[in-house]
């Protein structure tokens, strides 16, 4: 919601500050990538988690807002909706956390398709929830 400008350029920039300058392999003798690719990827996951949090908060607010009864109490449907939002959000956090832990090694493995599908699935679940609320 707030960081797309930086994100687009950064995502498309595999070499960044050109780590090839000294070493044809692009790595320092310690096996560490001077381009800090794992760190940048980790921060990208954190930014995405933040975006998911904002969308989740909007969704939960919507669910509760729509179901406030005359007495000022939140209806059961609103609570269920909010709980679903929290569930989706926790699911996304779990994927992001596992990936962030996985990025802690010097030469991390590629993202698994399952993690990618789950992360995208959380986004789609929020959208489906929004459609249910809007219509």
């Amino acid at each position, binding site marked *: 919601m707030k960081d797309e400008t930086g994100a687009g350029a*950064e995502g498309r920039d595999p070499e960044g500050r050109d780590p090839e300058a000294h070493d044809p392999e692009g790595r320092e003798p310690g096996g560490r990538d001077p381009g800090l690719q794992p760190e940048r990827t980790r921060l990208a996951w954190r930014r995405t988690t933040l975006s998911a949090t904002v969308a989740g908060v909007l969704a939960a607010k919507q669910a509760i807002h729509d179901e406030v009864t005359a007495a000022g109490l939140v209806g059961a449907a609103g609570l269920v909706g909010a709980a679903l939002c929290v569930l989706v959000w926790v699911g996304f956090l779990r994927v992001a956390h596992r990936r962030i832990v996985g990025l802690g090694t010097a030469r991390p493995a590629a993202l698994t398709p399952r993690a990618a599908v789950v992360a995208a699935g959380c986004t789609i679940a929020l959208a489906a929830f929004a459609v249910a609320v809007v219509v």
Partner: protein
Amino acid sequence: MSAFIQSLRLWFTPQRIRDEGETPDYRFSLANERTFLAWLRTALALVGGGFAVDQFLPDLRWGVRVGLALALLAAGVLCALRAVNHWIRCERAMRRGEDLPVSRFPSVLALAVALVALVMVVVVLFGWAG
């Protein structure tokens, strides 16, 4: 279309992607992953925009409000699906040593967002309220 079904099968059978070609330099995989995440953030922002239109513009006519919200939400869903698909295709192309896939999706999304923005300008200018 068969290429799409092929990559759809890859979504759910991750081990198959390792059967093809050679593992690329991990930095390229990570760059691909960051691009995927940037698209996912775009999708989340679109979904958030859909919520915001529904929530913060209660004075709009029902049809306009719901139409705008649904357009944004649909764009968000498409964006998320396409993010996974494009990520898989890039990963496979890198393994096979092929050129990276090209896509017209960014242009289509840009046009859709411009259209929504134009509608918003019209709504604000002519005050299609209540």
